[in-house]
């Protein structure tokens, strides 16, 4: 092999070595702002009891690469329901961080059986995120049972009163002369 050939091979070897060993140029990443809301234990089926406190957790996850500030938590709910967040405001959430928020859901005592939609809203300075969850009211409300029982009791009392009052009139009436 001639000297020229050796030089060519050497050049190729050096070039390959440089290509392999030199660090790759780093790609510049764009700013990504994202917030993920997850209701624990689940987003799809959650059972709640009427007129009682039902505790859940909301995981607020900053899935972007920039810190999110001043996240205010609120909700859209059926009439008469009370939903409390603790804390109601997350002042700072770093990227990749998760903050757990306690949620207390108290359905109205007159709520009947069924599935209800509740919207959880997280509104920050940088982003607004909405999460819709379904809550199933399984436990029966005692309100209508009480109404039925009261009406039933009134009817029984009325029957007894009429029975005694009008039934007694027969005895009080003077006997007609033969």
């Amino acid at each position, binding site marked *: 092999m001639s000297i020229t050939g050796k030089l060519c091979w050497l050049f190729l070897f050096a070039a390959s070595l440089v290509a392999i060993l030199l660090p790759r140029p780093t790609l510049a990443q764009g700013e990504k702002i994202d917030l993920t809301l997850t209701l624990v234990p689940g987003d799809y089926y959650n059972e709640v009891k009427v007129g009682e406190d039902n505790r859940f957790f909301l995981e607020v996850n900053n899935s972007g690469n920039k810190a999110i500030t001043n996240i205010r938590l609120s909700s859209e709910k059926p009439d008469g329901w009370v939903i409390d967040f603790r804390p109601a405001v997350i002042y700072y959430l770093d990227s990749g961080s998760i903050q757990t928020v306690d949620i207390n859901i108290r359905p109205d005592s007159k709520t009947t059986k069924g599935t209800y939609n509740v919207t959880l809203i997280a509104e920050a300075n940088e982003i607004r995120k909405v999460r819709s969850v379904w809550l199933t009211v399984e436990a029966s409300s005692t*309100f209508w049972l009480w109404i039925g029982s009261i*009406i039933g009791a009134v*009817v029984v009392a009325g029957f007894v009163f*009429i*029975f005694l009052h*009008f039934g007694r009139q027969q005895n009080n009436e003077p006997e007609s002369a033969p």
Partner: protein
Amino acid sequence: MIERVHTHIISELGTNTRTDTIFVLTAIILNLLSLGINSGVAAGGERDGTATIVMFTFVALVIVVNFVAELGLIRGRQMRAKLLTGLLKMYKDQGVEGYYDPSLLSNYNTRYNLFMLVVLFTGLIAIIIPFVVRA
């Protein structure tokens, strides 16, 4: 004349029986009908004011009809007792009282009380069950 009076009393007793039968049957049928309608309304998905108004209207109807039936039955019982007392007196005057047992009077009383109990309980079921379904 006494025979005409006897016929009249018997006729009155027949009318009394028919009237009481109508009271009992009307009350029971209405109670069952109301039970079905109100249970259907309560079990339905509609939870608005209209469903509640329909339910309470039928409950009011059941209460009124049941009270009217009870009053009618009480009056019917009293009327029957008076007619039978007159009939017994007539039999006694004619010397044939041995053929009619006076304990029938108390039997009729018991029967009327049982009718009223049936009306009351079907009415109670017609009122309470829809509320249980709705709860």
